[in-house]
């Protein structure tokens, strides 16, 4: 690595400073500005009531148990995946990345198809002469959260396994270190390094759970803060209470996000974990049985809900005729528009921000400050921003008329931290490799950008925008706050259908939504790779 031996005090390029500064101000207005709006409004609203405390308590308890269970189950699963070679293993590790893109409403339908009152498990229990299952409330929320976050925690632990130098596995194999001794020697240190980060990350994700808690929670005893905010703002039109709850939500989120950031990389970072290390341990019968059990249970737990959605979705496609069909396709069109708009906004926010963070490389404090600004959406939940926009816009405009653009904006703000985290290192690397060459050739402006950055940024940009598009297309969050029931996006329509008598149409729409989200991700990702 070339090391800069003389202190260089190059001025920040004006273009980077202006565009990056503008993006930062806009993002901070959305996040910290929202918090300020919410806090001012909450001051009028008085102290927390008993229902508020219940929501806070449920939020913390379900987030804790979701994180604890996801992290605990990830240990045997990661262990088995790290030391076994079997056909389909590569496909399975790739699949572990899928829940990040999977719209939460799909997982909700999957959990209902398997664990619901008329789901497969209930049918089996009935056949055995037992009572049907009722998972609504804490159990349903935990099942859905573990479904989403077990793969994430497992990926983080596989990363830790991959960080062990390959020589160490060989040395251990040569020394005959096996089983429990090998676990203590190599595996536990790796797991211990990854587990707190995985726990904190899952906790912070589940602390802002909305769709899952809304659909699978049960009544006032199983309501998260996000759901309570939604009910206060959109159902009972009590903006004071919504602001009060949003202030509490921000405190919870900011603390959890800070802990997660301190302990772990954001979830998108661990997308492609490659484990090439061959292992020589675990040939014994007990170890093989333990791994087979862990893999089989994990595959069943993760694949059954997907199979359930697929099975009922095929049946449900028939229900997409007439009025229901027209509504689904219209909603799909709205979702596509929101996703594309949100992707564009993400690019407009994230590219200048990433360029700013990378350009401040030589001023570490300023760079860290800019990066912290780019990460503020992780601390402000979508509903905190949503409530603030509601409060600010209501005197001057009808938020419902702006539902789609506002949703795209909030989605873009939420996707920006991931995009910046993906883009900034790529810009920094390109600059380190060819920045000086470009300067010595006297390149500047767009020519310089083209020579140094464009080729190097294509792939990470495609990946980041693919994530942003898929997340936005599948998002069931602030849209519920703003939208009138007559112009829903596809996830919101599915939620409405699932709660109505037309459950089949909801499952049919699941096909359309899954296809839309993955097509958007793959489309942008391919575009970036030039295929």
């Amino acid at each position, binding site marked *: 690595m070339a090391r800069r031996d003389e202190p260089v005090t190059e001025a920040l390029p004006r273009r980077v400073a202006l565009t990056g500064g503008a993006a930062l101000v806009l993002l901070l207005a959305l996040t910290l500005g929202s918090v300020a709006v919410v806090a001012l409004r909450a001051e009028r609203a008085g102290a927390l009531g008993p229902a508020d405390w219940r929501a806070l308590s449920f939020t913390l308890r379900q987030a804790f148990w979701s994180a604890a269970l996801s992290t605990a189950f990830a240990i045997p699963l990661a262990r088995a995946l790290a030391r076994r070679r079997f056909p389909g293993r590569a496909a399975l590790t790739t699949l572990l990345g899928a829940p990040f893109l999977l719209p939460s409403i799909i997982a909700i339908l999957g959990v209902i198809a398997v664990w619901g009152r008329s789901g497969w498990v209930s049918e089996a229990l009935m056949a055995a002469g037992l009572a049907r299952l009722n998972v609504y409330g804490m159990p349903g929320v935990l099942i859905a959260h573990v479904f989403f976050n077990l793969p994430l925690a497992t990926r983080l632990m596989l990363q830790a396994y991959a960080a062990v*130098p390959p*020589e*160490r596995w*060989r*040395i251990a*194999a*040569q*020394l*005959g*270190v*096996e089983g429990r*001794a090998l676990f*203590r*020697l*190599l595996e536990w*240190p790796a797991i211990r390094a990854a587990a707190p980060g995985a726990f904190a990350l899952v906790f912070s994700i589940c602390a802002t759970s909305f769709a899952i808690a809304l659909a699978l929670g049960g009544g006032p005893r199983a309501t998260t803060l996000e759901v309570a905010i939604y009910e206060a703002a959109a159902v009972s039109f009590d903006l004071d209470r919504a602001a009060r709850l949003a202030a509490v939500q921000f405190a919870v989120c900011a603390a959890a996000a800070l802990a997660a950031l301190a302990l772990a990389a954001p979830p998108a970072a661990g997308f492609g974990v490659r484990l090439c290390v*061959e292992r*020589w341990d675990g*040939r014994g019968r007990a170890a093989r049985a333990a791994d087979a059990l862990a893999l089989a249970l994990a595959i069943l737990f993760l694949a059954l809900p997907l199979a359930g959605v697929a099975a009922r979705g095929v049946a449900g496609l028939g229900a997409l005729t007439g009025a229901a069909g027209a509504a689904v396709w219209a909603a799909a069109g709205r979702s596509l528009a929101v996703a594309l708009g949100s992707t564009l906004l993400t690019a407009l926010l994230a590219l200048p921000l990433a360029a700013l963070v990378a350009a401040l490389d030589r001023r570490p404090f300023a760079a860290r400050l800019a990066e912290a600004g780019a990460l503020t959406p992780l601390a402000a939940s979508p509903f905190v921003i949503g409530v603030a926009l509601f409060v600010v816009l209501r005197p001057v405009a009808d938020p419902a008329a702006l539902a789609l653009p506002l949703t795209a904006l909030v989605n873009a703000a939420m996707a920006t931290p991931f995009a910046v985290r993906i883009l900034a290192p790529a810009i920094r690397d390109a600059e380190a490799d060819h920045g000086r060459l470009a300067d010595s050739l006297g390149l500047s402006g767009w020519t310089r950008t083209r020579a140094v950055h464009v080729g190097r940024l294509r792939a990470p940009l495609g990946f980041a925008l693919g994530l942003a598009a898929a997340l936005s297309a599948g998002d069931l969050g602030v849209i519920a706050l703003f939208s009138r029931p007559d112009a829903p996006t596809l996830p919101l329509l599915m939620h409405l259908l699932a709660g109505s008598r037309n459950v089949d149409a909801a499952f049919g729409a699941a096909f359309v939504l899954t296809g839309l989200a993955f097509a958007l991700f793959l489309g942008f990702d391919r575009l970036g790779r030039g295929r």
Partner: protein
Amino acid sequence: MIAVEGLRVRAGGFLLEADVVVPAGALCAVIGPSGAGKSTLLAAVAGFAPVEAGRVSAAGRDLAGLAPAERPVTLLFQENNLFPHLTVARNVGLGLRPSLSLTRPERARVDAALAETGLEGLGERLPEQLSGGQRQRAALARALLRDRPALLLDEPFAALGPGLRAEMMALVERLTAPRGIAVLMVTHHPDEARRADLAAFCALTAQGGRIDGARPAAALFADPPAGLAAYLGDAGGDLAPR
């Protein structure tokens, strides 16, 4: 003795073919361009690479089908030979038994091995508190306790400076020759290969790499085959054995 006869190892599209014999107590250096399969040879002997054809034996024992831990072989890498959160003494003790509890006589043997490799009194340190050379000494101490008739070294001193490298080479010779341990060492430093008893050239081929037997190092460098001469470049002529 290490005997590699008609060995063929395939990894992806790469094919290594090798014939090498190292008598007991001798040190054989394998030199050649990177990517020719030098490390693959060691991996095959240690049981980490699947052998397609040929015979590998150590101390007269055919190694086919033996797990890495069952082979009469110790392999050392350029780095990461020690487990970072275990003390040096515990790392070395793993050479006696693959658990972390040692009896008092065993602890005495660990101390003796540490003394023999010049690490007296450093047993309670963590690997990160040692220098690069000291870490390799600790790995050698563990190899001594394992007491296997074959020692495989994969560029063990490449990260060290020239003076330290010569010192470590001398240490390896002092530790292995009297015990009759056959040493197979991969290196890209001609000076290391020159002072070995035997040297073998690992040549690039169209399909991968090939090793055509070992010769006395002095003889090989006095009359290098075309591939080795090209690999050594100008240095080959000037640095002939003094």
